[in-house]
């Protein structure tokens, strides 16, 4: 005869997964307007604009984003 049972560890794992999925859901809903990646990107773009050589490599002059 087979006995169905759920070990405590399995239930805990399920609970942790559900909690993390809820956290992920709220993270998606309440995401920031300006996050870490965009701040990092802003620094990178400003460093490119500061350097004439980098501006040339990235085509900033051609696009008109930086005035020559």
């Amino acid at each position, binding site marked *: 005869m087979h006995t169905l049972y759920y070990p405590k560890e399995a239930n805990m794992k399920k609970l942790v997964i559900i909690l*993390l999925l809820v956290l992920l859901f709220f993270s998606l809903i309440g995401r920031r307007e300006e996050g870490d990646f965009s701040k990092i990107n802003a620094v990178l773009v400003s460093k490119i604009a500061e350097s004439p050589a980098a501006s040339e490599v990235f085509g900033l002059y051609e696009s008109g984003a930086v005035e020559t």
Partner: protein
Amino acid sequence: MRVRWSTGFILFLAVIVFQNELSYTLTFMSAACLHEAGHLLCLKALNIKKPELSLGLCGAVIKADTSSLSYRSEILVFISGAAVNLLASFTALIVLRSGFNTRLVFFFFANLFYAGLNILPLKNFDGGRCLECILLLITDPFKVDRIMNKVYFIGSAVLLFITVYGMQVFGFNLTLVLVAVWAVFQCIPSKPCCLSAS
């Protein structure tokens, strides 16, 4: 192909998504996907069957039975991920030259970051494994082991320096703190277990 994921991966994803806009997160994830796709395509080309993709707290790891491969073929597998990232960066640069776009700049640097990080000579990293295979082609395994222990120590120090320097340049934020913690975690010696890390 079998895909496994852990609760750590959801936690990692939740923190990254919470700290960043979705478009930037997706751009960063696309660089990671391109990296792993490079490895998987190379394994497929070398006729390696049933690779397993594990998604965990420290990123994605591919597990495959590469015992039939020569050292030269293994080197090819290890560099394929970074090669795809470099190709993506180069393509982004060509597109940037025809029309500047700040999001594309992020894609360029995300791919460059992924390629650069993975070719660092660290334990469980593509660079470390690649260097190990190159050394095994020219010298005996015991000597390689001694050399690699020293290389891993120096590589870990370089990674920590890059992380701390990056935090100073870009400002202290949670994403970079996570990267720093992860860098420290990578410095802890562990058993070699898989094909590719991060």
